């Protein structure tokens, strides 16, 4: 039930009864213009991540059922669905963060560039170096801004001019202008929205192939959220972004492809965002999107 109240204003969008006029305006703008043109101009893209019949169990409870989908390169793919539907679990399968939970067990195949990441010869640490991740709650380290961004370079032993990479990453995360004079102050002194952009800068500094985002804007206010959304739009030019979100408007605004998970860990619908939102195949998805349940 809490899910329903959480996403109340999102789910009522088609009826025009949204509680947040700014968010509504932004939605119309991006959805009608940017959203359509983006998918038109990009054309067909190669598949980067592919899931084949993935099942995930937490002890005896099945969290994901038979997930099969293909995530295209240099696109934004959104995962939406009610709480507990397994969308975050799926995201954490891609970089094997589920390995850190003793009770979790993954079956099926999850391919990154055609290689199953659950093969025995795959080192999860090496895998995570190619897949960046941004978490729901901003979680910068209690280090300086510079050290936060350089953390990935440092632990991965990357060569190169760290100063330049840090500057570039912060610029790409649209944070440089705000912090360039205080690179050596603690990352925890920033505001929540700035902290989240710092986390994005940290994730992209080692130049990963995929960027996973687990509800990156859910802890932020509307202004900070719109900044993060603009940023994701820019990032999609160079990175493959997979974003889990609770906010259906957000998914509609920023993503090229959308996957809808529903309770029970099933993938009910997957396709171009436009089609999923305007003309879903499944009645359950239509009910969810129009706010009849969720």
């Amino acid at each position, binding site marked *: 039930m809490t899910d329903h109240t959480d996403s109340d204003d999102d789910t009522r969008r088609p009826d025009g009864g949204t509680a947040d006029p700014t968010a509504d305006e932004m939605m119309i703008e991006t959805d009608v213009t940017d959203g359509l043109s983006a998918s038109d101009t990009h054309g067909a893209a190669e598949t980067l991540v592919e899931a084949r019949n993935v099942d995930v169990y937490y002890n005896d409870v099945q969290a994901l059922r038979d997930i099969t989908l293909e995530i295209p390169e240099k696109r934004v793919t959104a995962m939406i669905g009610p709480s507990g539907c397994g969308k975050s679990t799926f995201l954490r399968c891609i970089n094997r963060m589920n390995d850190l939970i003793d009770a979790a067990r993954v079956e099926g195949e999850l391919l990154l560039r055609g290689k199953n990441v659950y093969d025995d010869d795959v080192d999860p*640490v090496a895998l*995570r*170096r*190619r897949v960046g991740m941004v978490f729901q709650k901003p979680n910068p*380290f*209690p280090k300086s801004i510079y050290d936060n961004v350089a*953390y990935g370079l440092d632990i*991965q032993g990357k060569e190169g001019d760290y100063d330049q990479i840090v500057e570039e990453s912060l610029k790409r995360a649209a944070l440089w202008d705000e912090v360039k004079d205080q690179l050596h102050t603690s990352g925890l002194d920033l505001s929540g929205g700035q902290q989240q952009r710092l986390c994005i800068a940290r994730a992209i500094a*080692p130049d990963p192939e995929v960027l996973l985002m687990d509800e990156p804007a859910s802890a932020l206010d509307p202004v900070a959220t719109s900044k993060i959304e603009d940023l994701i739009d820019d990032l999609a030019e160079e990175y493959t972004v997979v974003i889990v979100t609770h906010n259906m408007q957000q998914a509609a605004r920023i993503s090229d492809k959308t996957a809808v998970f529903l309770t029970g860990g099933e993938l009910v619908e997957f396709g171009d965002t436009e089609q999923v939102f305007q003309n879903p195949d499944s009645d359950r998805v239509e009910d969810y999107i129009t706010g009849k349940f969720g």
Partner: protein
Amino acid sequence: MATDTKTAVEGFGQVSRTVGAVFRYVLLAATLVGIVALTVLLVFVANDAVRPLTADPGWHLTFFGTLVVPTLGLGGYLAVRDPESLWIGGMTVGLAVVSLLFAGGVAMIFVDIVTPVVWFAYVVALAAPSALVVGLHRSSVEPPYLLRLAVGVVAYYVSLLGLPGPVGGLAGVPQVVPSLANAVQSLPVLPVDWMLLLVSFSVLPAAVLAAYARSVAGGRAGLLVGVVALAVVALAALAGPAIGITTVPAVVLASVVVLPTAGYVGGVAATRPERRVGLLLPAVVVGGTLLGAVVVEAAGFAGPQSWVDWQFLTSAHSRNAVDAGLYPAIGGSILLMVTVALLSFPLGVGAAVYLEEYAPDNRLTRFIDVNISNLAGVPSVVYGLLGLGVFVRYLGSPSGTVLVGGATLALLILPIVIISSREAIRSVPDDMRQASYGMGATRWQTVKNVVLPRSFPGILTGTILALGRAIGETAPLIMIGAPDVLFSLPTELSSKVSAMPLQVFAWASLYAGPDFYEKAVPAGVVVLVTVLLAMNSIAIVLRNRYQSEQ
């Protein structure tokens, strides 16, 4: 219906609070009993030891006028106008007092236990292989890790122990290459003691100050502060003898008291100029004390006939209670403390990191868990028996030495160190670990870069409090055969050691007599409690800073 709701309510009745009020005051009484009892006891003992009433009334009046009134006045003013600067002023005074105590201990070590030459030799012998290891790590060739590890181990071994060293000694091979530590000591020409200390001891606080200044005001300021700090120490060594302080204690005082206090004051003045007014407080305290001393001297007012005086702190036990002192016991306690800290800190933190970050959640782990908590509750006399049985009887080391005592006390506080370190590690938010693993960090990198730095203040706080427990223990020392009375400081790990609580216990039992009860025992207790309170206050300040950072 409508008329009913419109009638004015005359009152909602009363609910009795009597039981609740009684309960509340019973709780308050329970809280106060312990604190009041302890305070009364401490005041009683302090009165016996310091005997403030033996001073001239003029002495009290003078210091009341020059020190107490101005301090309270300024303190009250700051408390109302700007509590934050009062806190800064209090911190400065506290820092000076605690570091003065600490300096006393360090000076004692350099004067009577480890001579500056030996210290310098071991610093060089540790620094040289460290430089080699860091150089290998930074070099562009970057040899494989295991090779670097092997080179490092060999370098430290040769530098500290020589070739073939103790391993060869076991096999009967004579020493071919002397260790670097011995080689340095046998150099024909060495600078004088205070210069050795300047380069091997004072550089540390000077470097910390320089790094701080650099982070605040840039590289040039850092260099300047570092040079000035070393100059201050050198000046203290040259000027010390003129006012009756020999060079080695002067260097220690300058490095341990003057530099940190000046650094704190300078830091406040540079980074928080609006709080500068708080720095008046230490000025008033120091100025008031000096002014009072001058007035008392001029007017000829006699001070209190305190049992805790310079003579008590610097002489050994005597059959005559008035001449008895605590010096060997203080030195013994310091040496025990160093040994205990060196043994229990790595073991305790290591166990805590393993149990929190690495151990799988299985029966063995849970079994160890429960038993660590149980060990924390085992009486200290049992640990004394363990020390006697294992170290003295089984391993055959002589009884009552610094090493045996330190190892026994380390075992005693090990469970407490483990438990408090685990608490500190557990309080690191899981978000941080997730972020680190998500960046592709290994477990080791996560522990090293995220978990340990974040939990370090908490670990340190717990360890200091545990050390406070060790410093007050008597029973384990008696069990391992530490002598009650010692007339000189232990100079190495295998010499016999006494400790402050043991000496006080001896005065109260073996030499029990009215003189010792009235003079030596209270004075010893006051010194012991002062050291303990100083250690606890460091722990509390650390913990407060740690909590405010989160």
